[in-house]
């Protein structure tokens, strides 16, 4: 994730699709980060909610009665707005690849908050996914450093 707070970041980011000059809180990469965090929170809430509702119902409709699931839906709606803003400036394939950070944050969240086990191989997988994100994000970060 590139640095988003310095004054330099406010100047135009020249990339495949240039990002116009904007306030730091409108930076599309910040909004991809917001999307990732809100999606992780939402999915953990969905899991908590669906665990307390009977399984086997049609398409999991019974889960809508859960407060946790409803809060999760709220997080999903907020993450959608952040995502749509990011898509105005960032190519879908780059945004979608950076959003793979959910693959790291959700297992870590499940481990930390839900007590689910993470095996050694899964830790290795989390590390490899992180490497993949760095491979994609590094040229973007360097681009911002130069500006």
């Amino acid at each position: 994730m590139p640095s988003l707070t310095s004054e330099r970041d406010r100047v135009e980011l020249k990339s495949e699709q240039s990002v116009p000059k904007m306030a730091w809180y409108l930076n599309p990469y910040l909004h991809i980060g917001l999307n990732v965090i809100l999606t992780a929170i939402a999915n953990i809430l969905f899991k908590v909610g669906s665990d307390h509702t009977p399984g086997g119902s049609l398409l999991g409709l019974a889960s809508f009665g859960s407060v946790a699931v409803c809060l999760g839906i709220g997080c999903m709606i907020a993450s959608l707005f952040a995502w749509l803003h990011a898509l105005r400036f960032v190519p879908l394939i780059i945004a979608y690849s950076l959003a793979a950070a959910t693959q790291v944050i959700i297992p870590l969240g499940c481990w930390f908050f839900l007590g689910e086990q993470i095996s050694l191989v899964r830790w290795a997988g989390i590390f490899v996914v992180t490497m993949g994100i760095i491979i994609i994000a590094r040229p973007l970060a360097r681009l911002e450093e130069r500006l």
Partner: protein
Amino acid sequence: MTLFFFLLLLISNSSAIAGQICFKRAMGHPDVVGWHRAGWIGAGLVGGAIGFFFWLALLPHFPLSKIFPIEAIDRPMMAVAALIFLREKLTSRLMLGIAVISVGAVLVAGT
């Protein structure tokens, strides 16, 4: 994971990809505004909603930390879809990154 649950996951992923393509069509072009934009966002929401319902149906049956990373297998599918439907540029570095992420996701999901 049985064939039935894998099919549910495949439907969920495909719907989500179609939805993302619609979102990008809504936001990616300055000429797409007003009802035109709302239409694409609506189509994206329908795609996402179909994926979401199938996702909710899957959740009670598996630990989230195990089932969620399987979704990353759809990343190469998304790359192909963005190439075909949005004509986005796919650099070698991006392809490498996507491949590494997918391998990592399979490692996470396979344990």
